[in-house]
């Protein structure tokens, strides 16, 4: 029996890939004032970023409840005996705790492994995709858990935002705090390290952002999985993909979009690169 792979909507995995690999995605929610939306269910990137830029108040987000995880696990338990559930860094969201709660609530109907990825967006996404591919290839739960832990240690997620304002107001700024409050027009390059956001570098133009993201990516000796994510700048994403494709002609490059929940914290104009290094 195939191991089921569960993640949450912050993984930003493109819909086709989710369907193709049979991944179960538990949505987080986004609130614009009184309005409540489910990430990737009844609100998608285009509409979200339009609202974000036009809404008088900033949106807030909330993690799925333990109950909704229990429900998801119950449903899957009808088809499988083994579940791996991989989630956004517990330092950025309570989703991982909700998943643990969900597992406890439903009791011992099936074997569930819940993993804190210490990553977010397609950083989490590439790990989940690799797990789903292994599951479909017939790997056991133990084998998948072991490879997921290994994959997490090899995966890096970094990118650029137009402003740190969204991360700051959303309380997720972490160690990138040091980059706040500049009088100059600065594009901060940030990344996730040990599960939290940190400031990588500050550059002064869009052009330089693209150059640096490419240079960072080229800094890895070998690459096993690569994904480019954007919020509102498909042209920039396209440039990144084209330049990286000419550098790594053999490499499949996933193209993804920051969803509403991640978009709440990164804002418009954000770019991300997820790299899974080749194992040494």
């Amino acid at each position, binding site marked *: 029996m195939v191991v089921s792979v569960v993640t949450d909507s912050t993984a930003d995995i493109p819909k086709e890939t989710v369907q193709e690999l049979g991944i179960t995605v538990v949505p987080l929610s986004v609130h614009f004032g009184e309005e409540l939306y489910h990430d990737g269910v009844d609100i998608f990137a285009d509409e979200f970023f339009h609202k974000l830029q036009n809404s008088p108040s900033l949106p807030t987000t909330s993690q799925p409840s333990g109950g909704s995880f229990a429900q998801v696990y119950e449903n899957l338990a009808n088809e499988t005996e083994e579940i791996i559930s991989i989630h956004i860094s517990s330092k950025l969201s309570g989703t991982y705790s909700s998943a643990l709660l969900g597992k406890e609530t439903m009791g011992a109907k099936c074997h569930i492994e819940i993993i804190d990825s210490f990553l977010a967006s397609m950083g989490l996404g590439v790990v989940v995709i690799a797990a789903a591919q292994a599951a479909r290839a017939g790997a056991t739960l133990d084998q998948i858990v072991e490879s997921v832990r290994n994959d997490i240690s090899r995966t890096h997620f970094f990118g650029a935002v137009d402003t740190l304002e969204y991360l700051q107001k959303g309380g997720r700024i972490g160690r990138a705090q040091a980059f706040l409050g500049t*009088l100059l027009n600065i594009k901060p390059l940030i990344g996730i390290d040990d599960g939290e956001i940190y400031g*990588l570098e*500050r550059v002064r133009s869009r052009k330089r952002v693209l150059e640096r993201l490419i240079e960072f990516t080229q800094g890895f000796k070998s690459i096993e999985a690569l994904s480019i994510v954007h919020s509102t700048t498909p042209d920039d994403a396209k440039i990144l993909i084209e330049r990286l494709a000419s550098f790594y002609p053999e490499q499949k490059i996933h193209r993804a979009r920051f969803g509403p929940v991640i978009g709440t914290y990164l804002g418009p104009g954000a770019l991300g690169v997820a790299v899974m290094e080749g194992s040494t």
Partner: protein
Amino acid sequence: MYKVADKSVEAGMKKTTSCDGQELRGMFSAATNWLERSAESINMLNVFPVPDGDTGTNMLLTMRAAMEEAGRCSDGSAAEIAQAMAKGSLMGARGNSGVILSQIFSGLARGLNGKHSFDGNDFAGALVESTTLAYNGISNPVEGTILTVIREATDAAHACCTSVNSDLLTIMEAVVAEARASVYRTPMLLPVLRQAGVVDAGGQGLYVVFEGALRYLRDEIEDIDITPVEAITAISQGLEEDGIYGYCTEFLLQGKGLDLKAMRETLANIGESLIVVGDESTVRVHLHTFDPGAALSYATSLGTLKQVKVENMDEQHRDFIAAQAQITTAEIATIAVVAGEGLAEAFYSIGASIVVPCGETMNPSVQELLHAVESAPSDKVIILPNNPNVVLAAHQTSALTHKTVEVVPTKTIPQGIAALLVLNQETDLATNTVVMKEVLSTVFSGEITRAVRSMELDGISVREGQAIAFLDGELVAASDSMAEVIFMLLSRVDVEHNGLVTIYYGADTSTAEAEQTAESIRDTFPVQEVDIVNGGQPHYNFIISVE
């Protein structure tokens, strides 16, 4: 009876053959006053006709610092006085010439070590140490500068030495004659001087210092006033060294027949760190005092006050202590040398721990830099001099502190910004220093000012008052129109292959003019981002970075 009657004659005789500590102090006090008379003309020797980085003033302030320290050393031996002068000049050194001058005094102190008094041979020997230290202090010594002048003067002193007890006056005469000749030869050694039609300003300053010392030995000091240094010293000793700051008070006084000596004497009773420079019609005053009102009302009685600046140093100090308490994460502290309120804020906003203001010559002293290093909230400190004439002084601090100091030799504001932006607190000091140095070549720096005199340089003829543009320190354009000179500058840079043009406009430039300039740059380069920042810097109407 004979001795009493001829006391003055004997004293005069004595100091021409050898000198004790008091006479050494007298020599260089006279030299300082002699230099003060020439400072303005030395300032005019700047290769570039720009209104900052004045060598004459920098050297004068360095000499004053040396003599203030020497003044604290009452009844010292020659060795002690030389040591005090070395220490004082080292801390007070401003600009590259000031730093080299301080190295020369360090050499004298080394050469005179243990001596109660010294003769010509001793002095010639000490000059050898001076030359060695002056050359060692520079990573890339250039001939045709103050370095050549000290070296050749030292050689001349040696050639004059006899086997025993050379007369000090004879040696000093040889030193002065050779220093003067050496200064005249500097344009032959350094093409940039030849082009600008000037001799080296630092070399000229050193020659003037030696000449002042010689005049003292010859008793030709009737019109050189040597009292102010002592007056300042008395006040300095009266105040505690640390903990008390008061108000930093600066103003420009305009009037007729202003008496600098009288002003110094009066103001010395009001505050310390007194600097009074200028002429009969215009005087610039800087002092630290608890009663700025007294200084200002005294000045008002003499003429018209301009450019009054009073800053509460206690408050600055308290603010600084408070800010320091907030900074808990700064693994590496950064110090930026910046003129202009807007630029200072820009540096603070991107994480500078301390911004050191440039001071009146745009070049802070070693002491000011050292104070910043010691106050910095970390044991690891990076200094961004942001001016080629501050780099040496910044390097001097590392030997004076137990902290680890790295200098990223930024020569312009844009380089300083670029370097500070790549500072990464998550990696170590050495790596950061390397990365910050690497980034300097990725930004073009344009500086635009008005020429303070007419000249021809690098095939560009400049008339006094014209707008002139420098690209990475090189004069590239001159025009009557500020806008035209900006576009001439930009035509030298591959703007199309860069993403961002930032315009920092100065204190003398209106926001409207800056916005208009930005707009015309946007029209010409529609793909590039163009930012404007109110830098508030003195002297430079525009600083422009292209990156």
